[in-house]
């Protein structure tokens, strides 16, 4: 063992200090292994001087490095984001699917959809370990415009896949809800505000009508179901209402939400992009509010995209969302299939033709995964991106998203939007760890399959 007091020099342990904005603690991070510790500010010298912390970390250094390498390079696709139609009944101004597709695109026929799922079933049977069920998420555009095909696919392949559906929530009726609930389908809805004057600003039908009232009806129909979530896309139009949004979703007993900063992949979305400093302030206040509501009522509203960052710190392998790690999950944990069967690394790329890797009806999936468009995304490494390559939190953020970076900056080897927001979320997460509040922000049972590999506390 080399001398532990040589940290940050030559081959010594790398520990970058970061200010987490806490009155008592400072953070130190070993970026390559995503190892971290919080040190009491008045005990920094003792904590780093040949201490138990460094000895224990040194013993785990290799294992932690292998863990992160496995997370970044060792996974196989086990999910497909499947667009059963190009079309949408809404014309949201920030959508990442091109307008012409959403308006004039086509449905996949029920026969073709079943054929595609049969191909995917065969593929996953050969690629995944026995007993691991892959996931199919019907996505869009609006998948329920092709409801008959989607529901017959769920019925026919219910034993073969875990199914999910991300819908704008405007086409759900009570029979649909019963169908989906009875099959434990994971459901995502979209709503951008607590009142129609906010929610309907950017999410409108083609003739300009707001749809939030109908979405709220759908949320009411799902009340009590634990397997659904609501996505709120955060723009400069609604960021000032995020606290109200959290209060509304909590009141509606929504179990999980995502407060997603708008993806700036298409030009139309960029005019709604808030400044990092603005969104971060409102976003963190909304997180504070979710904590207060939990303290007051004992019922959680989990903000899943933040929870994922927190989990990425506490248990890197347990993260559910694969945008916030480099390479991202596109093409390596999941891929996307369009209504014509075209395959892309992620649905975010569906509007960018050069990232098409092949077609599920014409090409072998294994070969598609190795095409240049897929490899470019699978091999996008944060070590090649400035300034992320020097950033202490690079494995808690991942410099998302390659599609966004490509369209905004002309190259996927650049960082995406909202860098400062990620930094502020990570600092917030560390403050929660310092104050022993993490459980209030995570869904129950998130760590039921996890075990502790390091502990000084």
């Amino acid at each position, binding site marked *: 063992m080399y001398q532990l007091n040589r940290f940050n020099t030559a081959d010594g342990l790398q520990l970058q200090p970061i200010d987490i904005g806490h009155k008592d603690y400072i953070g130190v991070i070993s970026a390559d292994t995503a*190892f971290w*510790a*919080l*040190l*009491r500010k008045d*005990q920094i010298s*003792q*904590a780093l001087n040949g*201490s*138990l*912390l460094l000895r224990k970390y040194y013993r785990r250094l290799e294992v932690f490095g292998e863990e992160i390498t*496995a997370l970044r390079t060792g996974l196989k696709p*086990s*999910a497909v*984001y499947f667009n059963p139609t190009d079309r949408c009944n809404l014309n949201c101004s920030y959508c990442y699917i091109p307008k012409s597709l959403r308006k004039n695109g086509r449905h996949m026929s029920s026969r073709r959809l079943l054929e595609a799922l049969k191909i995917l079933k065969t593929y996953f049977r050969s690629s995944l370990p026995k007993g*691991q069920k892959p*996931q199919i998420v019907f*996505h869009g555009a609006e998948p329920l415009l092709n409801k008959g095909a989607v529901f017959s696919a769920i019925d026919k392949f219910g034993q073969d896949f875990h199914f999910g559906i991300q819908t704008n929530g405007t086409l759900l009726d009570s029979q649909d809800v019963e169908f989906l609930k009875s099959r*434990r389908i*994971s459901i*995502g809805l979209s709503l951008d505000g607590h009142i129609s004057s906010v929610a309907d600003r950017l999410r409108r039908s083609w003739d300009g009508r707001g749809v939030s009232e109908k979405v709220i009806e759908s949320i009411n129909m799902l009340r009590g179901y634990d*397997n659904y*979530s609501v*996505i709120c896309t955060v723009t400069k139009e609604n960021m000032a209402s995020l606290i109200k949004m959290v209060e509304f979703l909590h009141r509606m007993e929504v179990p*999980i939400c*995502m407060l*997603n900063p708008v*993806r700036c992949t298409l030009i139309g979305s960029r005019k709604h992009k808030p400044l990092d400093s603005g969104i971060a302030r409102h976003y963190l206040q909304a997180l504070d509010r979710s904590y207060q509501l*939990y303290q007051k009522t004992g019922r959680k509203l989990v903000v*899943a*995209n933040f929870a*994922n960052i927190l989990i990425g710190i*506490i*248990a890197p*392998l*347990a*993260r*559910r*969302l*694969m*945008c916030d790690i480099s390479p*991202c*999950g*596109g093409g390596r*944990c*999941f891929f996307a299939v369009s209504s014509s069967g075209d395959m892309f690394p992620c*649905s975010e790329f569906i509007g960018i033709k050069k990232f098409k890797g092949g077609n599920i009806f014409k090409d072998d999936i294994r070969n598609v995964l190795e095409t240049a468009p897929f490899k470019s995304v699978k091999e996008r490494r944060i070590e090649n991106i400035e300034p992320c390559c020097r950033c202490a939190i690079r494995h808690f953020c991942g410099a*998302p*998203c390659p599609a966004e970076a490509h369209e905004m900056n002309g190259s996927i080897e650049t960082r995406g939007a909202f860098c400062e927001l990620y930094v502020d979320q990570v600092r917030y997460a560390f403050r929660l*760890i310092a*104050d022993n*509040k993490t459980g*209030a922000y995570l*869904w129950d049972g998130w*760590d039921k399959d996890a075990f*502790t590999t*390091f*502990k*000084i*506390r």
Partner: protein
Amino acid sequence: MEKKGRKVKKNVIAYRKKCKANGTGLAHYVLLDKK
């Protein structure tokens, strides 16, 4: 619910958990239920 804070401030806080990696979510959708 958790207590608002710990009474004694530890000199060092560091912990890590491990499980099998199988995340498949993306920003447009999160699949949490695996039942």
